[in-house]
Structure formats: C-alpha cells, structure tokens
C-alpha cells in the first residue's frame, strides 16, 4: 500500500543563520527511515512517466522499490546502470523540470522526491568502505578525453570499463571542470567529485592536468603523434557573456565564472589561500539561473548583502527551485522585472552603483517566455560595490580554432550527431556544453556515455 501523504518529506538542512557563515553543504540528506517513507510514496506506475522525463532514463521506480525493500546497494547499482554520477545528479539535477515533473503523484499532490532518494542511495553507497574497482584488462586501444567535467568523466569511465587506455586532459590544475570551479561546496561537496575521479583512476584512467588542448597539444597531434585512436571533446562552455553596457570594465565587476572560480577552485576565502577575492558589502548578481544563485549565495557567505537582479519574474527563473528557495531563506533580495543599463563607478574606477530600468512582461518571444519590456522613465540606481554578471556562457573557441575540419555552429557549439556525438572529423566525438551550449550536468553526462558507446563501436569496427 503506497504512502499517500500529500507532501514530500522535507530534507533536513543547515539553518539559514548557520549556513550563511560557512561553506558546508546546505541540504543534509534523508536518513534511512525518512528515505523509506518517501520511497513508499511512489505508486510504481506501469508506464513509468518519470523515466521518460530523465535525460539518461534512470530506472526510477525500480531503484525506489529497492529502497523500500532496504536493498540500498541494489538501488545504487540500478541508478548506476545509466547514470555515471548519481551522488552529483541527486544534488544538482533540476528534478522539478525532469523526472519529478512527470510523476503521477504530482498531478494532485507533490511528486515523489526522486532527487532526494537518488542522493540517499548514492550517499549510502559512498559511505561504505570505498572498494576500489579492479582495473579492467587493457584492450590495447588509446582514447583521449578533452575536459574533466561531467561529460568527460562519464565518457572516460565507460571507456575504461571496456578496457580502453584513457587519458583525460584538463586545462586547469584540478580535475572536475564545472563541478569544481563552478558549483560551490555548499551545493556539491568537492569530496564527492574527488571520489568519482579516484574511481576513474582506479579503473586506469590517467588525468593530465595543466594541459590545454588547442594550445599545449592539438587534437590532431593527439591522434597523429600521441597514438590516440579517438578523441572525445567535452570542453564545456566556459566563455562568460557580458551585457555590453557601459561600466562593465570597472573594478568590482566580475563574470560569475571569475567570482566562482576565485571562491571555489582557488579557495580564496580559505585562510592560507593566496588568491584574493573582493569582500564587498553590497553585491548585485545579474541573472536568474543556477550560476546566478551560486554566485549570490557565495557572496552572501563572504558577508555581503546580495541583490539578484532579474529582468523577468520569479516564475521565469531558470534556476532550480530548491536553490531559489535556499537563496531567499538566506536573505538574498530579488529585484524581479529589473534590468541593468549601466554600471556606475567612483573616481577610483570602482563600482558604486548599478543603474536599472523596471520592466514589464509583454508578448511571448521565441523561447515562449513573455518578453520583458522596459518601462519608460523607470530608471533608478542601486548602490553596490560589486556586480557579478551571471548571464550564461558559450563554448570556448580554443579547440575549434585549432582543429581543421571540425564543423561548428555559428554561435560556436561543435556540431555533433545526436545519440553518438560524432563530429565532422573522423575519430573525433563531442558532447556536453561544448555541443549544446550551457546546459545541465546530467545532459552532459548522458552525452559522454553515448559518445563512449559510439567510440567503442568505431574502434571495434576499424
């Protein structure tokens, strides 16, 4: 008999007062009893609409059944069949617009907390004594993976399990891509990422940090001189966008990438770290996505009063619901229907305010969302000493500029075949944000897995 309680069991969190003074994880995860109660809310529907809402088709009702039965390892293994990063996705997936959106329980009540249950299964697995997977026997073939973010890690893991000798090339000094430079510790503890990378290394994957493909070594050289039979490009979308408004080069204006990299990757707020970060008193974050929430909440933890400036309304915020709620609980102010037109500076070239217009929603645009339209005469200044631009990112041109014959979209994304990641260059595959533009961890991870299967087929059929 399913548990017909109408709402999700709440997940314990650090109190807002406590957590704005630390960088530790906010959501603390279900305990065993709560997890099983929540799992019992699942109706185990025959047609499993939740599965079709998952970009990698995790067998959701199956793993939830196993949690009810108390077989947590079985639940984890069920998820791991299609998801290379369960502990990560349980934390950062936008479940409300994927699996949980399609949950039948959600028609009348709240959907089953699928994300929280995924996290529970993964954390239970990870809490056990880490058994290093045995290194598979080598099949003698070498594959290079460019980028150590979600798509690269997923691709490398699948290929390594098939016996390929895989090297992952990372431009930065630490592996993990956006999982380490972008997503903050309080949302995704770095120990989880570290564990995934340790597992890959146990499988025999080599990680070559400080190697910029397109500069240190080109894609062509990987294949002609270094003997890699195939290359997977998962170099992400790392190039920050700015608004092109006056004052954006003032001191105190940052891309969210810069601000988050200083705080997350370079650990600027930790004593002993040499990288500086401005400790601003009043910070405006421009944008409404997950990256905007991450930047706002990092700034809050560094002691600032933070205002999110977003040109549409709360309903259009692209960020995960939970992050928006957490940000609001943490005292972050949201100025909706507000759009910056200029950053104003003081006599020393530092930000002193951001000039904005009030907006109203007009007719729907190409994305189907109602287009914000400026209200004449609504200009107003918000005093700030830092402004963080979180307006999205686009793929880095380094690889496309240095790889002849690699076809790309006009906006920079690498053109890759749906389902395989095959590019216009033989032996070169691509996936994740480098192909789609900035998207989600799970989509990138899924693309990495698909490309691994395609690369396997390609090499075996040669």
């Amino acid at each position, binding site marked *: 008999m399913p548990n017909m309680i109408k709402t999700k069991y709440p997940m314990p969190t650090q109190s807002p007062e406590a957590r704005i003074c630390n960088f530790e994880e906010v959501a603390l995860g279900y305990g065993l009893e709560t997890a099983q109660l929540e799992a019992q809310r699942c109706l185990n529907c025959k047609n499993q609409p939740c599965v079709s809402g998952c970009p990698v088709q995790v067998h959701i009702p199956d793993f939830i059944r196993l949690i009810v039965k108390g077989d947590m390892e079985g639940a984890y293994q069920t998820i791991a069949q299609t998801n290379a990063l369960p502990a990560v996705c349980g934390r950062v997936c936008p479940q409300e617009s994927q699996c949980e959106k399609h949950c039948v329980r959600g028609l009348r009540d709240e959907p089953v907390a699928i994300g929280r249950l995924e996290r529970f299964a993964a954390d239970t697995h990870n809490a056990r004594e880490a058994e290093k997977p045995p290194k598979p026997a080598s099949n003698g073939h070498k594959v290079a993976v460019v980028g150590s973010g979600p798509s690269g890690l997923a691709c490398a893991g699948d290929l390594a399990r098939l016996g390929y000798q895989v090297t992952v090339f990372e431009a930065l000094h630490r592996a993990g891509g956006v999982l380490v430079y972008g997503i903050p510790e309080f949302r995704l503890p770095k120990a989880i990422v570290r564990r995934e990378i340790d597992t890959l290394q146990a499988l025999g994957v080599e990680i070559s940090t400080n190697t910029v493909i397109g500069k*240190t070594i080109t894609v062509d050289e990987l294949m002609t001189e270094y003997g890699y039979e195939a290359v997977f490009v998962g170099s992400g979308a790392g190039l920050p966008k700015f608004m092109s408004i006056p004052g954006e080069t003032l001191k105190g204006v940052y891309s969210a990438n810069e601000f988050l990299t200083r705080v997350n990757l*370079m650990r600027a707020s930790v004593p002993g770290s040499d990288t500086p970060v*401005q400790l601003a008193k009043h910070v405006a974050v421009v944008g409404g996505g997950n990256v905007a929430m991450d930047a706002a909440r990092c700034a809050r933890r560094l002691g600032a009063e933070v205002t999110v400036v977003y040109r549409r309304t709360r309903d259009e915020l692209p960020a995960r619901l939970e992050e928006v709620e957490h940000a609001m609980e943490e005292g972050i102010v949201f100025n909706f229907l507000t759009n910056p037109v200029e950053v104003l500076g003081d006599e020393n070239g530092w930000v002193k305010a951001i000039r904005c217009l009030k907006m109203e929603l007009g007719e729907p645009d190409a994305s189907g969302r109602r287009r914000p339209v400026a209200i004449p005469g609504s200009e107003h200044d918000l005093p700030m000493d830092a402004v963080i631009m979180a307006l999205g990112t686009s793929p880095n041109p380094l690889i496309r500029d240095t790889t002849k014959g690699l076809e790309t979209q006009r906006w920079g994304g690498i053109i890759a075949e749906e389902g395989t990641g095959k590019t216009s260059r033989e032996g070169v595959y691509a996936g994740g944000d480098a192909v789609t533009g900035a998207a989600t961890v799970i989509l990138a991870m899924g693309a990495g897995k698909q490309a691994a299967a395609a690369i396997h087929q390609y090499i075996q059929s040669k």
Partner: protein
Amino acid sequence: MNRIIEKTPLNPTVTRMVVEAPLVARKAEPGQFIILRTHEDGERIPLTVADFDREKGTVTIIFQIVGATTEKLNHLNAGDMIHDFVGPLGRATETEGLKKVAVVGGGVGCAIAWPVAKKLHDQGCEVHSIIGFRTRDLVILEDEFARVSDQLRRVSDDGSWGDKGLVTDALRELLEAGERYDEVITIGPLPMMKFVCKLTREYDVKTVASMNSIMIDGTGMCGCCRLTVGGKVRFACVDGPDFDGHQIDFDEAMARATSYREFERHAHEEACNLFREVR
C-alpha cells in the same frame, strides 16, 4: 610538477629561471605566456615566456618580485619543483613580413621584449631596441639585446646608465631623425606603453603593446583580464596579449591593474614574514 633547472638573479628584484617543460617548450613562441602556481592553494599568475629551448625541453621565465607569489617563487631553487606550469597561452607576437621594427622595453618588460627582438633579428628584420630602466642596478639583458639589435638605445630615469631620460625620448629622437618603422613593439609598465603609443600616433607608426593583465585561468574562462580595445571588450589571455596600441584604453587598464593592490601588499608582507620566520 615542473623542475627548475637553473636560477639566476638578474638584479636585486628580478630573477631568471629555466624550467623543465618539454610540452610548453615545443610550442612556445615569443609573446606567449605561461601560468604557474608555486604550491597547492597558491595563486595562478601569468608570466610571459622569456626564452625556450625546444631540444632541451626548457622554458625560461623572468620575473620581478612584486607580490606573495613571486616572493614564494623566488624562494625556490634549482632542483625544486614548480607545482603547476601550463602553457603556452595567448597568441604569439606577429612578426611575419616585418622588415624594420623598433622594440621598446621598459624594466622587467624587457624580459618579454627580448625574445621578440631576437625572433625579428633571426628572420632578418632590422631591429632598433630601446631599453629603459629606473636606475643602473635594475638593468637586465643588456648583452642579450646588444646581440640582436642593429641599434641599441639605453636610457635610465636617473642617468646612471645610458642616456638620462625616458624610452619615449629616445624613440622620438629616432623618429625625428627620419627612421621609419613597419611597426613599434612595446612592452613594459602600462604608463610607459601608453606614452609610447601616444608618441607613435603622432608619427602614424603602427604600434603593438603587450598587455599583462590580471588573470586566473588564462584560457578565456574568467574574463578577469578584459580590456577595451577600439571600443570593444577583449580578453588579454585569448585575444592577446598583443593589441593595437593606438586602440587600447590604457587608463582603464591602469585602473583595473590596481584591483588587488592592497591585498597584494598585505600578502607580500605576510609572505616575507613567513620566510623570515623560517630562517
């Protein structure tokens, strides 16, 4: 991890290091830079490649001790490891087709100007070098410049070495004397480059300036190094570091360069104290 092969002090605040980095050495060209960290939790700093040896697989860096990281770097010795060393980054200085060039270097910027002068000299270009320092004690690479320059002008602020004056004085003399250059390439402190560009604009000589902005990743990811060139925002790390000097907004670049000055001063003092305690 990259091993330091050789370490030579060039003057009391400038050090040359030869670092084992075969992959970087293989690709490096004058004008490009590397990014290094001295230790875990260290800062990433960009340093322009001062020389490279493709056969030996080494890259030379020359740095001035100005902040915590360069202080820590300077405490490493031959045989020690640099924690992270990545490159070559940025675009190489364009030298193709140049027949006569004035290379104007100031202070530690001469370390970056020299490989450019050398490359030009090696490709048969007539090179007039103007190198300037505050005072005699700070002079670096004089012999190296002499070897690759058809004309070498030495200037110092206080007249203790070469002619008393600024690099712009020497450059103006050459231009006034009727020297016509395909290009002026200038590398040094921002105010110096600003005035070199102001001068060459009067004479309508194309001028390239090398911008050493604050950077983190050096691959276009953070945008920290952005500057305005010809009214457009560009990233020094991927679009540069060389830009058309007549288009650069130097005042903005100078303001941005001071972003962390207070922090740096404090961090440098701390680093110095740290080494004092160790001793």
